[in-house]
């Protein structure tokens, strides 16, 4: 069975590294991988996504609506935006953090995390949602740069990606500079 993984967030949050790691881990196991991501203007703070597909009979790198086995959301509003891509009974791992775009800061409508996380709780099947307190993780890890690994760790532990913790850890050296492996490993196990 093919695995479809959707990553989403805001430009600059490190979704690209997370999809690279998933792909590298799957390749090491001899699985076929295709992926796609946002490159270009939207990387400047716009909504960005990554699609990763693992399996043997893949043609398109893109994931259609209702096809994702799991959504890994780096910003809770962006997670909500991508929900139509989730399969029935699919998993959602999302940061509780919201990032206010300047358009919202300028107006008076406001934008905050709480209604988004509420919506996720009401719309993702029982036991399939994991909300990750990335603010807490940032404080504890003293870095804001490794939230991708924190979320990836939580995603892998749902079991739905078909990849194990060891698969990801052994792929780390391919994607991360040696001096950052320790921090990234710590981040990966943060929610354990």
């Amino acid at each position, binding site marked *: 069975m093919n695995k479809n993984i959707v990553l989403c967030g*805001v*430009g*600059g949050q490190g979704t690209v590294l997370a999809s690279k790691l998933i*792909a*590298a881990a799957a*390749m090491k196991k001899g699985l*076929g*991988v*295709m*992926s*796609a*991501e*946002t*490159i*270009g*203007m*939207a*990387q*400047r*703070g*716009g*909504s960005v996504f990554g699609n990763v597909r693992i399996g043997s*009979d*893949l*043609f*398109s*790198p*893109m*994931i*259609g*609506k*209702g096809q994702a086995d799991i959504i890994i959301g780096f910003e809770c*509003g*962006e997670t*909500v*935006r991508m*929900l*139509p891509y*989730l399969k*029935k009974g699919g998993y959602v791992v999302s940061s509780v953090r919201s*990032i*206010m*775009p*300047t*358009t*919202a*800061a*300028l107006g008076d*409508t*406001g*934008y*905050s995390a709480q*209604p*988004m996380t509420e*919506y996720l709780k009401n*719309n993702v099947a029982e036991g399939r949602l994991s909300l990750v307190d990335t603010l807490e993780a*940032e404080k504890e890890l003293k870095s*804001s740069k490794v939230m991708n690994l924190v979320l990836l760790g939580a995603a892998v532990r749902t079991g739905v990606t078909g990849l194990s913790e060891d698969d990801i850890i052994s792929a780390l050296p391919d994607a991360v500079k040696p001096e950052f492996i320790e921090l990234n490993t710590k981040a990966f196990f943060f929610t354990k």
Partner: protein
Amino acid sequence: MHKEFLMGNAAIAMGAVAAGVDLASGYPGTPSTEVLENTAKLRPEGVYVEWSVNEKAALEVAAGASYAGARCLVTMKQMGLNVASDPLMTLEYIGVKGGVVILVADDPGPISSQTEQDTRRYASFSKLPCFDPSSVKEAYEMAFEAFEFSEKYGTPVILRPTTRICHAYASIDVRDESEYVTHKPEGFIKDSKRFVIFPRLSFKNHGNIVKRNDELSEVFSNDPRNILTPPGKNSKKGIAAGGISYAHLMEALKDIPDDDKPSVLKISTPHPFPYSLSERFMRDRDEVLVLEELEPVIEDELLKTAGKYYLSTKVSGKHTGDVRAAGENSIDDVFSYVSKFIGIKPLEEPSDVLSDAPSLPVRPPVLCAGCPHRASFYAVKRAMKGKKTVFGGDIGCYTLGNAMPLDMVDSCLCMGAGITIPQGIGHIEPDTRCFGFVGDSTFFASGITGIVNAVYNQSEMTVIILDNSTTAMTGHQPHPGTGHTLMGDVVEKVDIEKVLRGVGVTHVETVDPLDLDKAIEAVKRADSKKGVKAIIFRSPCVALIRKGRALKIDENKCIRCKKCIKEIGCPALSVEDGRIVIDGSLCNGCSLCERICPTGAIKKEADHE
């Protein structure tokens, strides 16, 4: 052979290197940029690479190298080909000696472009063969094969992937280094009858090209890259597709029972079109659907096929309104087109679960926190407040200066037009203060001629050069002003100030835009002078420098006037439960907001008492 997980653009680079490319040139542009970057990274000993000053220069340099027998790769995005169209149109009449592959990346959507133009149309306009890959794997193989093909038929070849191929990744089989072709250019042998274009030569070669393309249509009809699969026994229908739409189509057909499957025609060579093959595809079909992005190229060719061979097959697609005319074909679009055409309901209709969701914020791209362009725009805005002005914008990150609250881009057309559009407005409305904004890379690519035009034709304008010492939008490529090349050589910088003075701009000032007061003064000074004036706002791109310490807002001093947000719109500034806050992970301490806050509430952390 071995397996690698590659981005489409990296796969293309690897295919070209494996084919023994001798020279690669190009100009950055999303989604094509990584092709040349990866070629440079992989570059075997003796291979020459360059970021040319623009696409026209890139193609001409490659043409010269090809005359000397070299295999050449030229890279650009679709609009870059407009710039390179002058040499392109004539090069086909001259032909090539060493293989020339022109990589032109199209951008359906568009995602990062001004137009949705289709390079396949350029291929038929310029009479060049065109390869259109539908996967990363195919992009790799086509890049490899195109050089030999180019030499065999003496013509440049256009390789035309789209964004979803360029920026997709796949694990694919690639050649080991020991399997690479080694290619030795023969050298340039003088032959003015061959390399100097004259009307008589054009006439002769025009006829030859038309004949050759007829022959290529047959060759492509038997090319295994154009695939014709027969229909299931219940189907009288067919679907033709090219590019990523073919990949989506193959996903959609997985759910359809074999007996109901339509015949499928995959077009990998949209020009010259393989007519004998398309005739075979259409002959026994009642109706065919065409899935492609941008222009209805395949669709037009199938209509032509119907006319040529007196077929009564109905052709559906963009012309009939069955397929979207603009924008990219998402995989969901293709699923719904296919199920509607075949008359089979999809197993599961994608549900729109979002109808009851809390309203999601729009999230347009913005200038980064601490971007010096924000300061430059703001300085001009403040200096010119209350005056009748026009601000010509150009192509680069700084196009984003149009967003609220800066709202400092009144026009944006194409590379270089930020300088010339205000000239036109100024001639019609002489009481308007005209400003043209241009980035450093764009200045070299196509800004200089516009400035010469202004000086020569006595325009009244201020040119603002936003010099952040890189080509930021496309991922930080070097250019003539940076002092280093793609080969890694350190070279003499081409000095923007000297260029401006050299072409006759007498008032030129270089200022740090983050020094707000001085920047505003400089703008006022330039504006008060006659003729063509220039200000170079020089400050490095924030993505290239070490992040400075974030600033903090003193809650006791902040009166929540929101002036900081409303004046400059830095994405690090936001509102949290009514309080104004700075996101420490985004702020890079540029201190622009500090200079705007009326109460002195924003300060470096250490300065808070």
